[in-house]
């Protein structure tokens, strides 16, 4: 590794603020830079993103490479890959980090191939060990973990939500904003976006909820989710699901938690009728406490749970909602 290493974070943002996961990546990047004496840079691809660059600095970036272009207004694979690759070539980072989101998982493999290097997706740990970068990630459907290193540079990685702490907002932190002129192709993009359909409910709520109530195959239909919604409302939480109910159309697919869905890290995760396959736990294993409700006492989920209820959720959940409401009333 020659010179001071530069850690590059590819920012995602909503309106005027970087996402929580982007702030977590800056926290991780500061840790990596601190261990090696390097600098943290952020990549901001946007059309209008007032205030985002300043918050990236306040959250730990020493430098923000900002590129403005109408084609970058919303995540678009081709223009983002092209723009991010251009900035990577200019900044010559040792590590490139992105969130393990639909955008990050789409973007990073393509950047890695363009830069002739390798990528680790969905990492849960990124650290320097004996001078080389070690990346740990779930694999085999969440049943196993692998730790990898790369013999090419830069190392590119996506990191799951909730694995690192964001730094507190520090308005006094100083950094520079470097404007980069886009060199996006003159010709029309090869992939054209025809239409975007956003879910009406605020699905970001799921990733930020303190309490998540999730349902699985054991709910036996969409009606069970109405019950879980009542429980979530009583607890001030959000509703999620394992893959099967999403595939079967019992609930919106944006509720999916797991290896191919969202990663959540709530204080409390109540898994109802979820067997606890590794691919689901890859999305909720970081919860502070898991409660498992299942008819099958042998279900794998009990191995990860702090509290377990063996029984029929249709009898248990209404009774539990009553208990929670009683408790709230007496407060």
């Amino acid at each position, binding site marked *: 590794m020659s010179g001071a290493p530069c850690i590059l974070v590819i920012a995602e943002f909503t309106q005027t603020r970087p996402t929580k996961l982007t702030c977590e990546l800056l926290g991780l990047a500061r840790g990596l830079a601190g261990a090696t004496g390097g600098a943290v840079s952020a990549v901001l691809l946007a059309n209008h993103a007032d205030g985002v660059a300043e918050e990236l600095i306040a959250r730990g970036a020493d430098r923000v490479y900002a590129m403005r272009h109408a084609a970058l207004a919303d995540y678009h694979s081709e223009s983002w890959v092209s723009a991010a690759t251009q900035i990577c070539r200019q900044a010559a980072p040792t590590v490139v980090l992105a969130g393990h989101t639909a955008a990050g998982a789409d973007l990073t*493999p*393509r950047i890695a191939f363009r830069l002739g290097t*390798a990528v680790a*997706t969905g990492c849960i740990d990124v650290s320097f060990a004996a001078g080389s970068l070690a990346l740990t990630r779930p694999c085999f459907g969440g*049943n*196993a973990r692998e730790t990898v290193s790369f013999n090419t540079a830069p190392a590119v990685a996506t990191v799951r939500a909730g694995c690192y702490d964001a730094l507190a907002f520090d308005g006094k932190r100083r950094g520079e904003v470097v404007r980069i002129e886009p060199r996006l192709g003159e010709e029309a993009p090869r*992939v054209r976006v*025809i239409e975007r359909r*956003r879910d009406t409910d605020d699905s970001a709520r799921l990733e930020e909820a303190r309490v998540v109530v999730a349902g699985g195959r054991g709910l036996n239909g969409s009606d069970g989710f109405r019950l879980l919604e009542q429980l979530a409302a009583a607890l001030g939480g959000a509703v999620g699901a394992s893959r099967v109910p999403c595939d079967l159309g019992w609930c919106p697919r944006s509720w999916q938690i797991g290896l191919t869905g969202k990663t959540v890290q709530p204080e409390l995760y109540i898994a109802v009728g979820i067997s606890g*396959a590794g691919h689901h736990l890859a999305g909720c294993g970081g919860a502070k406490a898991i409660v498992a409700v299942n008819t099958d006492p042998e279900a794998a989920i009990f191995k990860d749970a702090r509290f377990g209820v063996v029984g029929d959720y249709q009898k248990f959940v209404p009774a539990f909602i009553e208990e929670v409401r009683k408790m709230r009333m007496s407060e």
Partner: protein
Amino acid sequence: MRIVVCVKQVPDPEAAFSMFKVDEQAKKVIPAPGLQWVMSPFDEQAVEAALRIRKRHADTRITVLSMGLETARNAIKHGLAMGADDGVLLSDAAFEDADSYATAYTLAGTIRKLGGCDLVLTGRQAADWDAGVVGAGIGELLGLPVISFAMDIQVERGAVRVERVLDDGTEIVEALLPALVTVSNELGAARTPNLRETMRAARKPVTVWKAADLGLAASEVGAAGARRVLERLFLPVKNNRCELIPGSAQDQAAGLAQRLREARLI
């Protein structure tokens, strides 16, 4: 139209966790007795997507391509029994222990040798390493437009129209062919081969190629061409200290509420 579907044979991801063991020394999965090897489910859905396209475009030829041990022939047979037309098996000791880069490099080289195609389909990720890198890599190496996480694929007038999954919804995108599309589980269930198709599959051609057949140097494929070094493979440690709440549903509800309260979780 020619569609190439890249598939991988993996240990059955639906198998019970108790059947899943790793040899930490060798950094390999131990094939437990009775553990089935199957076509990765997302790849099955990629074959399904190809078959749905062929239903509307009868002049479509579907080739199932797999790199792996000689046993990967079974994954190709499965694709043929689902209804694909022919298969290509890349089996050579030189291909072993490839990473995502070397795998994409080898598969891209194979598609070139096949004379290219109109559409390359892959699963969004293989159910063993769960990386989700090879599909995008093939697209980049072949210079194709890449569309990831497809839940619906339509081909019309030389273009592919894809509904793809976002974190908070979906989007519809379009690209001219040739293109590469990775398929997500939202596409829906893959068909189960019936007896008649399985019988027919036995007569469908499967070409077997080695590195030399592809004109690829041994230094570029398999472990020699890898950029990733596997440092460790291990099982996560489980605490397994679950407290079961006893009694009737009523008792359990009261008991759980009390414990969560004490733990300041609610």
